[in-house]
């Protein structure tokens, strides 16, 4: 049990460190177009919670399958939603 508590504490500390770094980086002079890069620490934090507190690696196989399916369909959702805005050419109106 002590090992599990130590593991939980380490995950909490890692989450806090990433959160502080994320907060600090948000004040860096990043161009507006590149600022969505600030979402990357959140991806790391999501992985820490899913693997640490939600014990995804030791979950039943079918549960891991559901988790992977969720990520897969989220990728499809976000990918298709952004296909149009990222590939459309906007031409200036002449005259």
């Amino acid at each position: 049990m002590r090992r599990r508590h130590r593991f939980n504490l380490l995950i909490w500390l890692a989450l806090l460190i990433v959160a502080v770094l994320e907060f600090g980086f948000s004040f860096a002079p990043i161009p507006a177009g590149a600022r969505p890069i600030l979402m990357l620490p959140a991806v790391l934090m999501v992985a820490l919670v899913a693997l640490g507190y939600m014990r995804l690696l030791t979950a039943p196989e079918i549960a891991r399958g559901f988790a992977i399916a969720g990520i897969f369909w989220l990728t499809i959702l976000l990918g298709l939603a952004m296909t149009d805005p990222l590939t459309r050419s906007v031409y200036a109106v002449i005259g």
Partner: protein
Amino acid sequence: MNSLSPARSMSEEVAPHTHFQYADAGHQANTAVAGMWLFLASEVLFFGGLIAAWMFCRHWQPAGFDAGARETVLWIGSLNLVLLITSSFVYSSGLAFIKAGNAGRLIQCCVLTMIIGTLFLLLKFYEWHIDISEGLFPSSGFFKITGADAGGARMFWSFYFVATALHALHMIVGVGLVGWIAIQARRGAYVAGWFTPVEVVGLYWSFVDIVWIVLYPAIYLVGRG
């Protein structure tokens, strides 16, 4: 209760929490955990629609969207992030305690988790009060941001209120579930060998934490250039 009752009674003597349709307690626990993960996968797509809206709107109106984001109350959003991360840690500790058979500690962890969750909600309500009193509600009336950026800013604040309200709704459900776990634990429902509901509610609580982890930079940080 019928002709199956004698068999059910025998089963209850061996594993009192195992329902008849499962081969054993492990099978039942795995099914419950998998069921919660299936629900969470559907929730990923539910909140995924919101994130898609954020990406789409910011792509077309970056200046207005960021003008709106700069008006958010950063200290409340950041404090709430720390609170939710801590609440997941506390609840996970409670799960570790009940695995070792310590129901008293589980109850304490549940109560602390509920206090942190309630504090999060109170801060969120206070933040909404500040936002609305400053004229940031995207209604047809007065809106603080004017000029060329007004349209994008209105889109940002529409996203903000929808996303935070949906998250708060999930938080209220979560606080209720953790309270239910605490009551059940007090009645002696959980022991070292059986604590599946504690585990399942923990998955839900951590997912609500994850949603805020994703919303926090999208709302408070990305637009603060």
